């Protein structure tokens, strides 16, 4: 139940964020420090010397083209996938030097929203959200019930408490997974693609929830997403990952201006630029046999 208050945050503000001061100036107390991260998966270099810091009590977005390693980075941070080289410090602890018990103790302070929700299919919505409480805390049943219903109310699914995951839509499953991720008021929450499959109403409510959690409880949030418009409403800063490195870093408004080739292409949605739209392939005309037998 560790919480960390963010300094000087406007708790009531629902307005989109203004272009803040440079994020590097904000990182007085980094919750996560990654240095020299290098990862090779199946012969492909995913990270090649990545350094980044996630400030405590802030919302940091990780963005980048598909397959660039955003989820892999989250798996490194949470001790699910070992890197080939580099250091990953979370709350001052080197994740990859922790024993299993210490790693589990750290994970108890982290909420993780999986890309595909990962709800336990044998349990109802209520039991899914109650699962972390029942596993780690010996709370009276009435208190468990109240906490779970409070979290479900926050994601708008209190009325769906008795439904099974198979009875939910993709967006509803994501909201249940979010309720489960925040049920223990963690120190940090990792949202892996939280906006996929949400209708505009649900999207707006989830954005408000992320902001409220961050502002009122000071929960550090890492947001992996593609939707710049949504990210810009809640994130203090964005890291743009591309080609195994940090291609850009700064507040959303600054990156949205597209001042570098990377940000220009990514946030402008352009096909041409440093990020190839096409997967590496042989010559198109030659493959279709239209080159007159030159090759």
């Amino acid at each position, binding site marked *: 139940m560790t919480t960390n208050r963010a300094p000087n945050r406007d708790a009531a503000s629902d307005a989109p964020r203004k272009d803040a001061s440079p994020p590097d100036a904000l990182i007085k107390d980094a919750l996560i420090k990654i240095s020299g991260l290098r990862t090779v998966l199946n012969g492909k270099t995913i990270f090649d010397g990545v350094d980044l810091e996630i400030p405590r009590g802030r919302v940091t977005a990780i963005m980048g083209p598909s397959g660039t390693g955003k989820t892999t980075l989250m798996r490194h941070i949470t001790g699910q996938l070992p890197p080939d080289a580099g250091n990953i410090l979370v709350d001052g602890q080197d994740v990859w030097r922790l024993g299993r018990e210490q790693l589990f103790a750290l994970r108890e302070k982290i909420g993780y929203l*999986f890309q*595909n929700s990962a709800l336990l299919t044998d349990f109802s919505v209520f039991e899914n959200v109650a*699962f972390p409480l029942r596993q780690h805390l010996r709370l009276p049943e009435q208190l468990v019930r109240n906490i779970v219903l409070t979290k479900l109310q926050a994601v708008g699914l209190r009325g769906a408490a008795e439904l099974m995951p198979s009875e939910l839509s993709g967006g509803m499953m994501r909201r249940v997974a979010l309720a489960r991720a925040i049920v223990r008021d963690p120190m940090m929450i990792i949202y892996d693609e939280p906006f996929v499959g949400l209708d505009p109403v649900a999207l707006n409510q989830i954005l408000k929830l992320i902001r409220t959690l961050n502002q009122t409880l000071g929960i550090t949030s890492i947001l992996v997403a593609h939707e710049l418009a949504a990210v810009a409403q809640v994130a203090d800063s964005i890291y743009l990952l591309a080609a195994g490195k940090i291609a850009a870093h700064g507040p959303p408004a600054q990156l949205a201006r597209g001042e570098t080739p990377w940000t220009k292409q990514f946030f402008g949605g352009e096909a041409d630029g440093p990020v190839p739209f096409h997967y590496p392939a042989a010559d198109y005309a030659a493959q279709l046999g239209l080159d007159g037998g030159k090759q």
Partner: protein
Amino acid sequence: MSAVRKPLSPFTGGLEQIGACGLFLVQILRAMPRSLRHFPETVRQIFFVGAMSLVIIMTCGLFVGAVLGLQLYDVLSRFGSSAMSGTVVAFALYRELGPVVTALLFAGRAGTSITAEIGLMRATDQLDAMEMMAVDPMAYVVAPRFLAGLIAMPLLACIFNAMAILGAHMVCVSWLGLDNGTFWSNMTSAVDVWIDVANGVWKSIAFGAVVTLIATFQGYTTSPTSEGVAYATTRTVVFSSIATLAIDFVMTAFLM
């Protein structure tokens, strides 16, 4: 060098799998004390792999006993020994058929469902989600199923034996006219509870451990795709059947 190693690769691959399975067993045993915290889950699994397998075990037991009784009565009557039908049925069931057939049925009924369930949990990130909630899947998912198999298998084998003897009794006594007292008295005087029955119980415990170990291992290490789960389920049946019969031979040699 590669020319020498290539023909060996399926062999070394098999050895690697056996080694990985052995390490998986060590992990299960280490997780066992922690799994006691989730004892209700173990009870749920005993119901799932045990009680839910009763129909197939009882039905097959009845027919296996009936066929055995019919065949033995026919063969033994040629030598004027039809009175020994019940005794031979009991020996065959307690020593071999009961544990072995139960294990094969168990692999098909419960082993496959364990593999498919854990495999799908792997494919849908449920196991990773547990890890991220600081809940050890080995203690919460794997160990209770392993323990359930260990407990359920000998009980199922006993029920199988009971139903098979009932089937043999129906055929030999009710249908073919063997004397009821002869059937039971020959059986009870020849069968030794500490040799014949206990041997079968030891075997069924060993088979329960092997089948659930293979089922959980295949599910836990499956490729997280629908094809991967399908292959893992098939491998569970194939490997469990082979392992059951091989271990049966080894145990029989030692227990004789």
